[in-house]
């Protein structure tokens, strides 16, 4: 296994751990974006460009959007 793959796998593992350890949802949305980026790198290294493209649009646009609008809605009453 080439070192690039091993390093990307390690990055994804660290990213997953980071996403779970951040407890504040607003900060977690940002860390999720970075985790999505490491996933995209892994998909490119595993020679899957179609999957990498769909992960790009999902983790940069769709996920943060629905997370942030839901969080902004629930910010008021408390």
């Amino acid at each position, binding site marked *: *296994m080439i070192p690039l*793959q*091993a390093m990307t*796998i390690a990055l*994804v*593992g660290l990213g*997953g*751990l980071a*996403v*779970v350890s951040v*407890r*504040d*949802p607003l900060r*977690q*949305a940002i860390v*999720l974006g970075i*985790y999505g980026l490491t*996933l995209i790198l*892994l*998909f490119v290294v*595993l*020679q*899957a*460009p*179609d*999957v990498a493209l*769909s*992960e790009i649009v*999902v983790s940069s646009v*769709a*996920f943060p959007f*629905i*997370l942030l609008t*839901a*969080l902004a*809605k*629930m910010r008021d*009453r*408390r």
Partner: protein
Amino acid sequence: MSFLPYALAAWLFFVGLYGVVTSRHLVHLVVCLGVMQSSSYVLLLAIGYRTGKKAPIFTSGVPVKLGAVDPVVQALTLTDVVVSVTATALILALVVEIWKRSGKLDPDSLRKKET
């Protein structure tokens, strides 16, 4: 060393599951569910990988006899990504409804039914 991607899939699954079990905020729970879903992408793509081969796109100039990684698991992973984002949107809508009715977002405090 060659089991590293499979170990990554297992690691992501259990880390996400730990996050779901010990979560104190419903939106944090939803994001940890997303991490669990991403473990399935990694497992699928790691299964279909062939060493030394490239992506299954044969545009002009790339001869077919070079071989490529497995395209079927990539199609499966594409569907997986779509389904996960729609399921997450639906679960977030549920979370917003829960907040509107009870004002609380802590899973532990939602246990008793309020009459």
